[in-house]
């Protein structure tokens, strides 16, 4: 029993086609992926350590031949075959999911709980923006009963004027922040609107410091240096 001589790897598929010329001519060149064959041939050679320059030469020669065959076919205007079509299969119609009403468990309580979290983050990350650009409540919130409020506006104006006069003892200047100290936000906004009305009737004078953004309210005949007025 002589030892079986082991065939070199390149005489096994898929590389064998590069070494069997008689087969090569019968094959359709489009079915041969030269790049793949050569790459894997080199990889295999490296892996097995069977470095054989003669075999490499033959492989290269065969590849060139296959390449030539492809080029000839193209010159004869034979188009390469289109990529294989997917197998035909029955495509069923869409499956509509049955519709079921389902009550969900989220309640307004959950909404408010997460709102709490979100607003905390808002305070944490954007304090400067919040101060400089407060989101004002809508007018209907400030003046919930508009008609009634308008009817009473003159009365309210008188009341505010009286309060102001009392605070400055007849004539004088008071800061807006002092006036609204301790007030609810909505109340402060209402007061501000009333001040605008009073200013329109020239019962008070308003101006704002550009740097501190403080609003000053002058009641009665107070002489104000023009230079101090940056805005009214």
């Amino acid at each position, binding site marked *: 029993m002589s030892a079986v001589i082991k065939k070199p790897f390149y005489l096994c598929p898929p590389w064998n086609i590069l070494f069997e010329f008689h087969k090569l001519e019968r094959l359709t060149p489009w079915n041969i992926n030269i790049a793949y064959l050569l790459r894997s041939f080199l990889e295999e050679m490296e892996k097995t350590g069977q470095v054989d320059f003669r075999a490499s030469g033959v492989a290269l020669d065969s590849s060139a031949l296959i390449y030539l065959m492809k080029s000839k076919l193209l010159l004869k205007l034979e188009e390469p075959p289109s990529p294989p079509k997917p197998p035909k299969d029955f495509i069923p119609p869409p499956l509509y999911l049955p519709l079921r009403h389902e009550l969900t468990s*989220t309640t307004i309580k*959950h909404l*408010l709980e997460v709102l709490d979290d979100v607003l905390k983050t808002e305070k944490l990350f*954007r304090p400067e923006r919040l101060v400089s650009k407060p989101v004002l409540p809508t007018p209907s919130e400030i003046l919930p009963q508009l008609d009634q409020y308008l009817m009473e506006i003159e009365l309210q104006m008188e009341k505010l004027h009286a309060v102001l006069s009392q605070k400055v003892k007849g004539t004088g200047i008071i800061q807006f922040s002092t006036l609204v100290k301790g007030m609810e936000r909505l109340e402060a906004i209402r007061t501000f609107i009333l001040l605008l009305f009073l200013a329109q009737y020239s019962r008070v004078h308003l101006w704002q410091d550009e740097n501190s953004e403080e609003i000053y309210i002058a009641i009665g005949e107070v002489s104000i240096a023009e230079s101090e007025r940056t805005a009214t």
Partner: protein
Amino acid sequence: MQKAKEQLLKLDENSKRKQAVEKTQKELALVEAALYVAGRPLDLKELCSVLKTRSKNKTRTLVRTLMKEYANRNTALELLELKDERYVLQLKAELTLHVKKLVKRPLLSMGPLKTLAYIAYRQPVSQKRVTEMRGHHSYGHIKQLKEMSLVIGERKGRSTLLRTTGYFADYFGLSHERSIMKRQLKKVFEKKIMSNEK
């Protein structure tokens, strides 16, 4: 001969009547289907579109017939007419407590819910502001909230203003009027904070 003719006429009439009844049955089923899957109040316009009719009168008659049927059936569900001719199919309140434990799925997961809460509280609020506050994930949240009709966006110049929808108000039992809704939210919210601080 005359008699045969009369009989034929009668048969014809009967089959026409039968067809009309069947049609009404089908339309009633459509109204019921709409109210069932919506799970929220629907107005006549929405019901008309399901019925593919423009006649509000027809739709009103149908939904009121269905209301009567529900009332007669005396089941777990009730069909109610709300303000502004809106109709809702819902579980009778007295049964809620007994089946509450079966309700497990939340409307939204935590992330999108937070984004929704923020939009509701600050609305109308620019998409940019929401993203700044809630991070870049909120793009996905906003998309989901829009798909679920909880939020709508409105282009205003170069930015998009977000606000909540009527469906949002219905779901949480809030007013459709935005200023009232915000006041309601604020009120409940402040009450909650107060009670937490105690």
